[in-house]
């Protein structure tokens, strides 16, 4: 483990292995929702969970194996014993609820800080939608229904959204993220931000987001769960480069 200056990660007692062993995660590489769950499992010191990497491209998210856990045929598909939680933010909240006192606290108690964590966490889902509307435009919209004007509008909406987040991160520094110390807000939003840069977002035009991205890249839970194919190729896509 790198020396991260994060006392929670390093000084918390070891977790009984059986807890994580009763957990399983079906996931797809590079999917921000899957990544959120993996970061949470790391933060709560629940490493050792069973996991299986599936391929969206091969349609494995619609396989029987997934459908048995998640009838919607979507990833992540997460089980803890008999409890099934397939919505990523739900799984993160569940894990923090059940394992509050182990690993790192992801939701503070004090009112102002807690409110900000919840607020940014939920705004993170708006960011997700707006990113997806641009990045997956061709996947979401059949060819005969596509319009340059529609994509342009989605890009403008996304640009405005990203500027909002740039504003939220005005004072970003080590230990000072979306809602102060690393929290569930960052668990939900960081994968989106990493995703955006992967797809060509300009660090020059979004310097605070870029700083947030590079500061947290080194966090053990994020490093441990970094999407594998992103490590093997440095170049991503550039659909967001003009934002």
């Amino acid at each position: 483990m790198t020396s991260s200056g994060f006392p929670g990660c390093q000084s918390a007692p070891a977790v009984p292995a059986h807890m994580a062993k009763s957990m399983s995660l079906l996931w797809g590489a590079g999917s921000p929702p899957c990544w959120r769950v993996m970061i949470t499992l790391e933060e709560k010191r629940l490493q050792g969970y069973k996991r299986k990497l599936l391929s969206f491209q091969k349609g494995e998210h619609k396989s029987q194996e997934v459908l048995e856990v998640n009838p919607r045929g979507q990833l992540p598909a997460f089980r803890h014993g008999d409890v099934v939680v397939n919505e990523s933010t739900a799984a993160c909240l569940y894990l923090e609820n059940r394992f509050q006192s182990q690993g790192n606290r992801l939701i503070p108690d004090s009112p102002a800080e807690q409110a900000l964590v919840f607020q940014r966490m939920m705004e993170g889902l708006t960011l997700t939608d707006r990113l997806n509307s641009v990045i997956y435009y061709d996947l979401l919209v059949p060819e005969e229904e596509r319009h340059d004007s529609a994509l342009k509008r989605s890009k403008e909406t996304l640009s405005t959204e990203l500027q909002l987040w740039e504003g939220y991160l005005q004072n970003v520094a080590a230990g000072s993220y979306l809602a102060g110390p690393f929290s569930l807000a960052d668990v939900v939003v960081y994968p989106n931000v990493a995703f955006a840069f992967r797809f060509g977002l300009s660090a020059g035009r979004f310097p605070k987001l870029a700083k947030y991205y590079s500061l947290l890249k080194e966090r053990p839970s994020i490093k441990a769960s970094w999407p594998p194919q992103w490590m093997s190729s440095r170049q991503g896509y550039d659909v967001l480069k003009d934002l």
Partner: protein
Amino acid sequence: MWWVGAGYKTRNVDPSALTPPSFLLLNSRPQLLLVISVTMAKDMTLLWASGSPPCWGVQIALEEKNLQGYNQKLLSVAKGEQKSKEVLEINPRGQLPAFKHGKIILNESYAACLYLENQFKSQGTQLIPEGAAEVGLMYQLIFEAQPLAQKIGEVLYYNWKVPEGERHDSAVQRNKEALKEEMKIWEGHLQGCGDFLVGKSFSLADVIIFPVFAYFIRNGGSEERYPNVAAYYKKLRDRPSIKKTWPPTWIDGPGMGTLKDI
């Protein structure tokens, strides 16, 4: 704020029946908590629109947590009041609900509901269950409700969201099919359910999702095609917190029938 004895409930005392300052001398716990909750509620403000499921959810949560007495203002989305200066000062996104507790701002309805339950855990109804299975199911359902609400919006507001030159019958059809499939999933979720979405008690799942089902039915959603949804709706609509916060603009007869084909 950790109170001894989880699940402790306050009595339902009408705040207007209290006579200050003598009640401050009471050493009875229920009345002390009531004092605190009335005070707390006076520091809260909600800007809302009638019939909006996210706004309604926050109102239900406030009632359930015995936080009546909050400041509130009904705004009109038809008149664009969600973009007024008053809203933008609290919510730069110009959306409702816009909620404040002192200096704390929560404009995402789920965030407000989670905050209220966490900060006022020991008063009013316990909205997050104790057991792992129930907690997991509750969180799962409230986040599954997001695609449900979205799909309703894609059908109801297609013409408002999509400029004329970009509209396609195929898209309208696809959105309708998607909503139909989504409603079937929820019909399944409610199969064999008791009175509530999760286990035997009212929870955040009901706070957040009841308004969405009510919205569906209000806008013409078929009770015959979705009998489980209709039964759930009928069972809960008389719950005090829900009855009290029933959208005022819904009292004057049925709404648009646009979802009748779903």
